[in-house]
C-alpha cells in the first residue's frame, strides 16, 4: 500500500535551538531548572512547587553531583516535577516510576536516583512496586507528594482520599479506608520514613538530604494542598487556608503509631521522622549473597576440573 502521510511542519531554526524562556536566570535556583520549562503547570497555591524548591535546596546543600543525580517520575501533577529539573530526568508511565528507577539504579549503582511522584501514582497503580522496592531496600529516594486526590485528571478519589471527602468520583463522600502512607512504607521495610507538610520547608529539605545520603530505600511523604481539585470540593478554603491548617493541626509525633499517623479530612497531622535504620541495601545483599557466592562456585568448579 502506498503511504501518504501529511507533511509534518519541520522544526524551525528557532525551535531547533534550545528554547529560552523569558527571564530564565532571574532566580538563583534557575540553574537547577531546565531552560525553556518555567513557568510550570501547577495551579496557584499548589504545594508541588514548594516540594520542587525543597528538592533543589536539598540538592544544593547536600552537594550531590547534578550529573550523577537522576529523577524518575510517573504520571500526575507531582510527576511533572521531573520535567523541570536540570538533571537527567525520566517521566515514565503511570505507576511505574519505581521499577523504572530500579532499572536505572541497578544498571549504574553510582547514580543517585530519586523518584518524585504523587500518592495515586505511587500507592494506587504503583502500590505493588513501592512495597516491593521497600522490601528489597533498593537505594532509592522516594518523594511522594500527597494531596489526597488525582489532581491532573480533575480531582478523583484515590487511595489516600480521607473517608467523607468529596471528589468527582466520590460525590457522596469517600467511603473507603485510605492508606496510611508512612505506616505502609515502614511496614514494607523502608530504611528511612518521614512525613512533613509543605509548610515545613526546611524539615522537608533536610529529610531529602537525609534520604539521598541514606543507603537504602527512603520514603518521604510531603503533604501538599490541592486548592483546585481537593480543597474546593471539600470547602477547605484556599491554599493559604490549608497552610494555616497545617500550621495549626500538625504536630511532631514521637513514634510511628498506626492510628496516630492516620490522616483524616481536616484532621490532625502527625509529622516527623518515623524510621531511620541502617540495613544492607539490595545491592549489598546481592553482592554478598549472590555475586560473591557465584564467584566462589565458579572457582570450585575450576578446581574440580583440574
Amino acid at each position, binding site marked *: 500500500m502506498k503511504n501518504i502521510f501529511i507533511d509534518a511542519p519541520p522544526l524551525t531554526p528557532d525551535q531547533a535551538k534550545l528554547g529560552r524562556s523569558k527571564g530564565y536566570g532571574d532566580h538563583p535556583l534557575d540553574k537547577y531548572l531546565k531552560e525553556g520549562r518555567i513557568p510550570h503547570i501547577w495551579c496557584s497555591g499548589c504545594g508541588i512547587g514548594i516540594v520542587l524548591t525543597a528538592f533543589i535546596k536539598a540538592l544544593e546543600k547536600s552537594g550531590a553531583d547534578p550529573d550523577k543525580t537522576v529523577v524518575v517520575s510517573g504520571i500526575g501533577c507531582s510527576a511533572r516535577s521531573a520535567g523541570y529539573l536540570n538533571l*537527567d530526568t525520566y517521566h*515514565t*508511565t503511570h505507576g*511505574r516510576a519505581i*521499577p523504572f528507577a*530500579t532499572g*536505572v539504579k541497578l544498571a549504574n549503582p553510582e547514580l543517585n536516583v530519586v523518584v518524585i511522584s504523587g500518592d495515586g501514582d505511587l500507592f494506587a497503580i504503583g502500590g505493588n512496586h513501592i512495597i516491593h522496592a521497600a522490601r528489597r531496600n533498593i537505594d532509592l529516594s522516594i518523594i511522594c507528594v500527597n494531596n489526597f486526590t488525582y489532581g491532573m485528571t480533575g480531582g478523583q478519589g484515590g487511595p489516600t482520599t480521607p473517608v467523607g471527602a468529596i471528589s468527582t468520583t466520590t460525590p457522596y463522600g469517600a467511603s473507603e479506608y485510605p492508606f496510611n502512607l508512612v505506616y505502609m512504607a515502614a511496614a514494607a521495610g523502608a530504611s528511612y520514613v518521614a512525613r512533613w507538610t509543605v509548610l515545613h520547608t526546611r524539615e522537608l529539605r533536610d529529610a531529602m538530604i537525609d534520604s539521598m545520603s541514606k543507603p537504602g530505600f527512603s520514603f518521604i511523604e510531603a503533604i501538599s494542598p490541592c486548592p483546585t481539585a481537593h480543597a474546593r470540593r471539600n470547602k477547605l478554603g484556599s491554599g493559604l487556608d490549608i497552610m494555616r491548617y497545617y500550621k495549626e493541626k500538625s504536630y511532631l509525633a514521637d513514634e510511628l503509631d498506626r492510628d496516630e499517623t492516620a490522616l483524616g479530612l481536616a484532621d490532625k497531622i502527625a509529622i516527623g521522622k518515623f524510621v531511620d535504620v541502617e540495613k544492607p541495601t539490595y545491592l549489598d545483599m546481592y553482592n554478598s549473597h549472590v555475586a560473591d557466592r557465584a564467584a566462589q562456585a565458579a572457582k570450585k568448579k575450576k578446581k574440580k576440573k583440574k
Partner: protein
Amino acid sequence: MENRAVLTGTHFINGDIACAEGGLAAGCRFFAGYPITPATEVAERMARRLPQVGGIYIQMEDELASMAAICGASCSGARPMTSTSGPGFSLMMENIGLAAMLETPCVIANIQRAGPSTGLPTLVGQQDVMQARWGSHGDYEIIALSPESPQEAFELTIDAFNLAEKYRVPVILLSDEIIGHMTEKVVIPHPDEIEIVKRRSPNIGPKDYAPYYPDEDDIPPMSTAGDGYHIHATGLTHNEHGYPDISADAQERLVQRLVRKIRSNADRIVRTENLYLDDAEVVMVSYGCSGRTTREVVETARADGMKVGMVRLITVWPFAEQLIRELAEQSSVGAFVVVEINSGQIALEVERCAGGNAETVLAGLMGGRMFAPDELYKVVKEAVL
C-alpha cells in the same frame, strides 16, 4: 582470562537456555523478569549466569515492573533483557509502548504459549504475533524475530540486541514453547566472531545536544544517564528536546519518525529463509516451530513432484512485504499456504500483500501441539490441485 560470558563450544541445551546465552554473548548484563511457564528457564539461566559475569538479575514483582526496569536500565546504558510468555506479555505492553516512545533499546523474549488468558501454560501457541506488532496502544513500529531452533534462538537473541541498539527500538524475540523446551545442539562461537553493535552516543556536548534530534537516518543518538547531558525523556508526545509538546505538529513529527525509522529500513531488517521459490506453484509461509514442520512437508512434496516452495520468516516484524508481493506477482505462484499455530495472523498480512494475485490459505491450529507433517501435507496437496 577465559570469557565466562560467551561459553564458546558445542552444547546440548534447550531454546530458553540458548536464548539466555545469546543475551549474555550479546553483552546483556541486566535482566529483570518474572517467572512464567514456558519462559522460566530463561530467567533461571540468567539468575545463575549473570552474577558470574558481573551482571544483575532481579526478579521483579510482576511483568509491568520487569518491563519498566529494563527501560530504566537501558537509560543507564545497559543492554537489558526480560523474558515472558502470553499473560506476562500482555502486562508488558504498557511499557513496550514506553520503550517505543522513549526509544530505549531493549529485548523482550516472548516464549509463546497457547491462549487466550491463562490458556495452556505448558503447551505451544503462536498467537501473540499481532500482539507483538500492535499490542501497546498508539502507533509505533517494532522488530520481532522468530527462531526455529535453539541454535537460532541463540543467534537471533544476539541479533535482537544489535537491532535494538541500532534502531533504538524494543525488539521482541518471538519464540514459542516448542523451541524454548526443545533440547538440541547449539554451537556458541568465539567472542571475536560475534558482532556487537554499539549504541550511537552523542558526539556533541550537552549544551547543543537535543535527545530526540535525529540523525539523517531518523535515529537520534542516545545519551546515558549520569553522563552530564541532563536530558528529559517523557512518554508524552515530545519535541526534539525531549520536552512535552502537546500539539498536533509535534505528534506528527515524532510518530512519523518512530514509524519511518523502521519502515524505511525494512529492507535492511527483514530476513527470511527461502526454499524452492523459483518455480513454486504453492508457497508455504511459516515461522518459529511451525517452520520446522513446513520444511519437512516442502521436502516431501518436492520429492513427490509437487512444486512447493517455502518462505520462513526470521523477522516476523517488519513483515516481508516486498518478498510476498513479488512472489504473488510471480507467474508460477498460485497460492500461499500460511502455516501458523493461531487462527490466522500472519495469514492476514500475506493475504494483504498478495493483493488478489494469489490465493491465500491458512493452515491453522489453535495451539497445544505442533503441526504433524501428514496433516500439513494434505493441506498442501489440496492447494496444489
